[in-house]
């Protein structure tokens, strides 16, 4: 494998958790809900996925457990923001703080234990193709799932009735309610989807990226995923591009550290966070684009008249 292949491979590995978490949040936000709890859902997915895989020995059961952990955490968010109409920003923070604490508690018995790595899929012959073989046909299954999810979300949002309903609910919940759509139910479903993909993103960290449990191993990726959604102006195709760009920045920092050039390692570690801020600034200069695509009722609770 050539060095350039190796770099591209690691970039894909670094980008996939961002893409997974962000594609779910994109759907959540399109339905008019702002869930700032990605970091919390993701870290819960990571610890539950690791624990289940470690106990059962099956990485796939770990993935399943992570997904359910993400959904369960997201439904807590749904209960508060949709049923009890709490402030979505504060509730998202609560989910993050709770998730970080709870995962630490659950994971305290798993620190330093060997994990189970999700095996790569290797398509015979095709993965042996020069240059692109390993890259396109020899990834781990979650990479393919993330791509399928992205394409699926783009298709569903733009071409199906379900997508139309989600967009309608996100734009004007009063009108959607007046037409007889169950705003809260639609949003619950979207929130659960977001929880599932955040759980998957967490599983990716603890079952593929570094198959072990490390406290706070999400390291702010949930927040970067949130920034990516803003950066994408709520368009799945731009989201994917953004995620791979960010993965690239992340890996660039790691490689630069590895090569031991004279830049402080802390500066290189800070690159993804600095890049996030820069990306948000760049996208904001085209304000019209982001304003038009912004779901108009983003972050507002909905209580129907009775």
């Amino acid at each position, binding site marked *: 494998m050539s060095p350039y292949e190796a770099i591209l491979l690691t970039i894909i590995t670094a980008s996939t958790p961002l893409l997974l978490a962000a594609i779910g949040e994109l759907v959540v936000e399109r339905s008019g809900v702002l869930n700032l709890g990605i970091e919390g859902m993701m870290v819960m997915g990571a610890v539950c996925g690791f624990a289940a895989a470690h106990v059962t020995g099956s990485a796939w059961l770990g993935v399943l457990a992570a997904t359910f952990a993400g959904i369960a955490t997201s439904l807590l968010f749904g209960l508060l923001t949709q049923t009890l*109409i709490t402030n979505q920003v504060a*509730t998202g*923070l609560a989910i993050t703080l*709770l998730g970080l604490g709870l995962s630490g*508690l659950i994971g305290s018995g798993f620190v330093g234990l060997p994990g189970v790595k999700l095996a790569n899929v290797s398509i015979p012959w095709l993965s042996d193709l020069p240059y692109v073989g390993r890259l396109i046909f020899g990834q781990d299954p979650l990479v393919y799932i993330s791509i399928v999810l992205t394409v699926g979300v783009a298709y569903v949002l733009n071409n199906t009735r379900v997508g139309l309903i989600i967009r309608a609910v996100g734009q004007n919940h009063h009108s959607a309610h007046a037409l007889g759509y*169950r705003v809260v139910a639609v949003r619950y479903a979207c929130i659960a989807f977001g929880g599932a993909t955040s759980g998957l993103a967490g599983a990716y960290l603890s079952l593929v990226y570094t198959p072990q449990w490390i406290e706070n191993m999400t390291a702010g990726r949930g927040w970067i995923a949130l920034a990516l959604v803003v950066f994408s102006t709520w368009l799945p195709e731009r989201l994917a591009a953004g995620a791979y760009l960010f993965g690239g920045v992340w890996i660039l920092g790691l490689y630069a550290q590895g090569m031991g050039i004279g830049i*402080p390692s802390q500066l290189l570690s800070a690159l993804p*966070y600095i890049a996030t*801020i820069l990306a948000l600034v760049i996208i904001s200069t085209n304000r019209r684009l982001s304003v038009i695509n912004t779901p108009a009722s983003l972050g507002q609770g909905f209580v129907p008249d009775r």
Partner: protein
Amino acid sequence: MQLILEKRAQASGLMNLLSPVLAILLTVIMGGLIFAAMGKPPLTALYLYFIDPLTSWWSIEEVLVKAGPLILIGVGLAVCFKANVWNIGAEGQFTAGALMGAIIPVLWGEWQSPFALVAMLFLGALGGALFAFIPAWLKTRFGVNEILTSLMLVYIAQLLLDWMVRGPWNDPHGYNFPKSASFEGWHLLPMWGDGRMHLGLVVSLVAALVLFWVMRHTLKGFEVNVVGSAPRAGAFAGFSQTKMVWFCFALSGGLAGLAGLIEVAGPVGQLQPNISPNYGFTAIIVAFLGRLNPIGVIFAGLLLAISYIGGEGVQIELGISDKTTQVFQGMLLFFILMCDTLILYRLKWISTQSSQQAIGDPS
């Protein structure tokens, strides 16, 4: 039957007071259940957690020492959140304040005078405020969401601190441990009691009382309230949204920076990579539990300080991970948000006939 919310004609004053109590109660119950699930005696654990810290003077002092930064950061954030400005990067501003204030002991170690301490306090607040100006500028100039930028800056501040104490500001006599030289003399806050109590708590209480007056009685407090709850009415009143963002970040960043300086010039006594047990994030909970009211924040700060000390106690006595502290804090914020719903709404059972529609389809 189905449980629904019905909007109250007027916000319930009773629930406004009762909601934090209810939230604490629910947290305690859930906490007991978690302890039980872990196979620990729940009542003992809860006693160790919430009561034991108040049974000895030593631990009460510890609680007060921990409450200081929580209150100081919490009152700033309470004003911010009231104005609908979401600074969640107080942890970063805390770090920035500590770094900026440490310029004097690290670079001018020989300047020993009370003015040096005053200058440190000033620089601490300035450092926090300047660091908070980054998200404020990005928001007012480019319209970038302040939640994400202020949070990203937390990571950046921590990495900056890490670099400083390992690199330029590393203690030349410190055997390469990641820390600065220890602060001495007038570079430390006056201490009393058993040697842990310091000026910080007094500063926090004064800040809380001043902000209480400002929020309750002055035009500035009125402005915060109006801009936060009804932005268009704020524009009608001639209050500038932009200035409000700057004001909130200056205030909360300054107070967080001051808290950071007080922490390194007080209990910690030097710069090191870990100077905060998540004070900046816990203060978010403090602000909400205190109903975004500076007096309420004082009580909330004390309660969360107890949870820190209690968490340590439980860890020592029962061998439970100190992560329980974070779980308790998270649950507390969770339940307070939940109970706050009851201020504006009442719960009501209704028959289910109106909920028979198919999900998401009008036919």
